[in-house]
């Protein structure tokens, strides 16, 4: 508890690339609260796999384009 996830994401950049989509709009599309979108963007919460796919689908991009995991940590 209290630690940030090692998973990084490009949600903020993708939101701006998709017509400056607001956090509230993204939250509405994937059925979560705006606070959860904020927490994911800031790396305070790793979403479930299902939610991660929903976010990727909302932007129409593959999962890898939204979430990244550092190479060194995979060994």
């Amino acid at each position, binding site marked *: 508890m209290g630690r940030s996830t090692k998973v990084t994401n490009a949600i903020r950049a993708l939101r701006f690339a998709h017509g400056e989509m607001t956090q509230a709009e993204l939250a509405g599309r994937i059925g979560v609260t705006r606070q*959860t979108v904020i927490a994911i963007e800031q790396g305070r919460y790793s979403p479930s796999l299902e939610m991660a796919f929903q976010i990727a689908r909302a932007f129409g991009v593959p999962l890898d384009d939204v979430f990244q995991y550092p190479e060194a940590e995979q060994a």
Partner: protein
Amino acid sequence: MTERTVWASLVAFPLVGLVYFTVILTQAADRPLEEVSWVTPMLWAWGSLIVLIIVGVIASAIATGIKAEAAGEKPDLEDGDERDKLIERFGNARAYTMSSFGGLVATVLLMLDVDRFWPANALFLAGLLAGIVAAGSRIRAYRTGL
């Protein structure tokens, strides 16, 4: 359960505990603790706790709804989402430890055949502390992450 529900609990539990123990200790100023009238204050305390949390949640939901409407946004999900549920379970796990410890203390007190004031109040205190621990750990999870 959402963050505002947790805030209502975090305010209500310490407030009720403070009032209850102030009432008990005030009575104890002129008599032994075992002779203090604690049943009625405890019933009032539990009742007040439930009412305070309900009122806090409703008031907060109304305020959030008005704020969202003023900003032209849709209000957030009332029941929360997967993150809220995960944080709720995390808080429950922390509270369970405190409740279990309170139950153990009360059992030992009953074995020692002390006045019923002590096990009853040990359980009550454990319940309050469990509520505070649950709410505190949930707020921390909301603020710093899971």
